């Protein structure tokens, strides 16, 4: 344990209290509490949700809305780390996080997370509308209370249901612009929702011992590797058409249909490959391959949706006109 202070005296109650109560880390440790990599996905998907609204929004308000959604997501990550600090310390993957490593005091992480939660919700409500702000508040509540405090420690289906929290941002982005939501943004929610189990279980297969040590009932711990591989394959087969659904419902072009279909097949193939490899280095590599590809898959599909929304907005004729005689 690292202490922020030098001990004054053996019987000094102040010295005993200062360590656990005061943070010892840098500003970067507080930034790490926000799970920046998850925030990247949230920013990106919320932006796509916002652009698919097909309604004009002041760019400054749009930027500030994305910032509020990202900070709300970061706050829920921070509160997740506050609540799970003890089990994070038991797992290799999470033991270097700011609280178990002693850089940030648990109470300060809680205060930081709560301040950002309330601040981001109020800010989003004041600059856009209270439907979007309410939805952001519900997302934070769902991730922290429903997923972190309840599902994660109770059922092997934890990340299936809890994945909804990570899938809400495009809907919040859309709602920030329109004050409502539609089928298109629901399909984007569904893409992330169905993508979460094969993505997360691929990692859990490699980290099974970690989760077992911490007493977290992840699917590989509860049902074993064979059943997890079967479930990954089922969800990957489901994911392929769901990934294509924006084009199937007429919200994206045939190009997107072919692109998402092809990438969906790659995901199914990798899940099938993983289902055949049960032990050793080959199984480990197959799990990491699926995990890594799944991240690229989701970013690529949302990037394709983004490009299809942005390209028609560019006044090509005016741009070319400046260079032509």
């Amino acid at each position, binding site marked *: 344990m690292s202490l922020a202070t030098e001990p004054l005296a053996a019987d000094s109650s102040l010295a005993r209290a200062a360590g656990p109560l005061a943070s010892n880390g840098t500003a970067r440790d507080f930034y790490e509490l926000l799970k920046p990599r998850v925030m990247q996905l949230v920013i990106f998907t919320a932006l796509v949700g916002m652009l698919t609204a097909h309604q004009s929004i*002041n760019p400054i308000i749009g930027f500030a809305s994305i910032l509020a959604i990202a900070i709300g997501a970061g706050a829920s990550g921070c509160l997740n780390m506050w609540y799970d600090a003890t089990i994070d310390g038991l797992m290799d993957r999470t033991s270097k996080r700011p609280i178990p490593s002693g850089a940030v005091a648990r109470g300060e992480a809680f205060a930081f997370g709560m301040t950002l939660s309330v601040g981001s919700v109020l800010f989003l409500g004041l600059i856009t509308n209270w439907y979007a702000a309410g939805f952001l508040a519900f997302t934070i509540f769902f991730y922290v209370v429903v997923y972190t405090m309840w599902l994660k420690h109770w059922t092997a289906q934890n990340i299936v249901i809890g994945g909804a929290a990570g899938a809400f941002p495009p809907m919040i982005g859309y709602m920030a612009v329109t004050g409502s939501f539609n089928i298109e943004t629901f399909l984007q929610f569904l893409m992330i929702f169905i993508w979460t189990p094969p993505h997360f279980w691929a990692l859990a297969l490699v980290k099974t011992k970690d989760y077992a040590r911490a007493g977290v009932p992840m699917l590989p711990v509860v049902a074993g590797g064979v059943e997890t591989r079967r479930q990954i394959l089922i969800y990957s087969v489901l994911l392929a058409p769901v990934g294509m659904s924006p084009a199937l419902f007429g919200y994206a072009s045939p190009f997107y249909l072919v692109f998402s279909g092809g990438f969906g097949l790659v995901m199914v193939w990798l899940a099938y490959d993983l289902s055949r490899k049960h032990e050793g280095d080959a199984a480990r590599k197959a799990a990491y391959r699926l995990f890594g590809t799944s991240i690229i898959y989701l970013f690529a599909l949302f990037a394709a949706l983004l490009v299809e929304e942005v390209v028609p907005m560019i006044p090509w004729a005016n741009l070319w006109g400046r260079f032509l005689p």
Partner: protein
Amino acid sequence: MNEQPYPTVAKLSPEALQRQKSRSKALGIVLGCLVILFFIVTIAKLGGNVYNRAM
């Protein structure tokens, strides 16, 4: 006379002091950015109404 000793204040190590300074600096920068953000967002929300006020 039964005198109570003054409470002793914890002394920070140089490394801890450095980290505390970095946190304070970051907090200052974030607060400054928030002030600017709130100002810009307010102007953006007001829009053309800024010029339509009674003089």
